[in-house]
């Protein structure tokens, strides 16, 4: 029994070592959002020229909505675009876009080339509204419940795996609730 006390530092060391080793698995760029379960920030963004509607906080209430922050200059945005398109066109999820610090012409060209799956797009030219959302890199995607609260945030491109394993079950659950 007395011997065991000498093993304690070793066990402690191994424990800390394992904790750090597991820490390496985590992505340091994936910072948890401070806004989870909080209402989406109050904002109004004007539409891209040639589009009818922009995006505002009032539009996020009523139905479960996905808000996708994207830009034409952002390479991963292009990679996730088919995933967003599938969510919107095939799976019937309302997706609204925030066009982050983009040149209007570039954004319109990009949408013409890659398709426009968004119910509406707000142009955040100076990125100020995106700061209110806690955006620190594009793409980022937020899931908003019917009351307009942020329930989930994806940093970086959406993948089919994230959609199937996290977003779709949550959309189903949030639609069923209230």
């Amino acid at each position: 029994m007395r011997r065991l006390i000498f093993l304690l530092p070793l066990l402690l060391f191994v424990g800390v070592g394992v904790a750090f080793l597991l820490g390496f698995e985590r992505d340091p760029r994936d910072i948890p959002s401070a806004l989870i379960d909080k209402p989406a920030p109050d904002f109004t963004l004007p539409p891209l020229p040639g589009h009818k509607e922009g995006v505002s906080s009032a539009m996020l209430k009523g139905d479960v909505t996905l808000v996708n922050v994207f830009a034409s200059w952002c390479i991963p945005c292009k990679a996730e675009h088919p995933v967003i398109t599938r969510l919107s066109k095939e799976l019937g999820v309302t997706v609204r876009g925030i066009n982050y610090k983009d040149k209007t012409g570039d954004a319109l060209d990009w949408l013409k080339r890659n398709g426009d799956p968004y119910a509406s797009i707000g142009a955040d030219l100076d990125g100020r509204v995106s700061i209110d959302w806690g955006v620190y890199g594009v793409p980022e995607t937020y899931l908003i419940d019917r009351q307009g609260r942020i329930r989930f945030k994806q940093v970086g491109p959406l993948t089919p795996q994230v959609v199937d394993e996290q977003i779709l079950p949550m959309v189903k659950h949030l639609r069923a609730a209230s």
Partner: protein
Amino acid sequence: MKALHVKAILLAALLAITPLTAASIAWAVQPDEVLPDPAMEGRAREISKDLRCLVCQNQSIDDSNAPLARDLRILVRERLKAGDSDQQVVHYVTDRYGDYVLLRPPFKATTLVLWVGPFVILAIGAIGTFLYLRGRKSAAVAAGGDTAPLTEDERQRLDALLRKEDRKEDA
């Protein structure tokens, strides 16, 4: 050959000191961001030094050239101009980005292990060392003090050995 060597050493030395000088020369804060009121600008600089740039992560927004860091620097200055206290400005940013943006983690329930952990481990070590040393001492005392007296048998063997040594020296 020799000259080449010297040049290589000079180059290496130059490269070694470049980051130091570059860091002190290249300010991230652009002239157009600076506030006209020096006192307020000073406050903005102090606040910015403690806010993490989320793009480069280990730099403060005061040091970083990332566009988002610039946006946040401007935001900090706008909040100050709007009459916010330093604390309100920091709150404004943590409301959006969480405690992660603070380069000095705040002391609260979720960070208790971070702040107190090292001292707890130090205390455990100190207590352990104390108990171990006390245990050793009491074991020695139980055996008759720090230096236990020799038994009769030991004394005779020691005497025999010493006598043998004496004889060797005489011879």
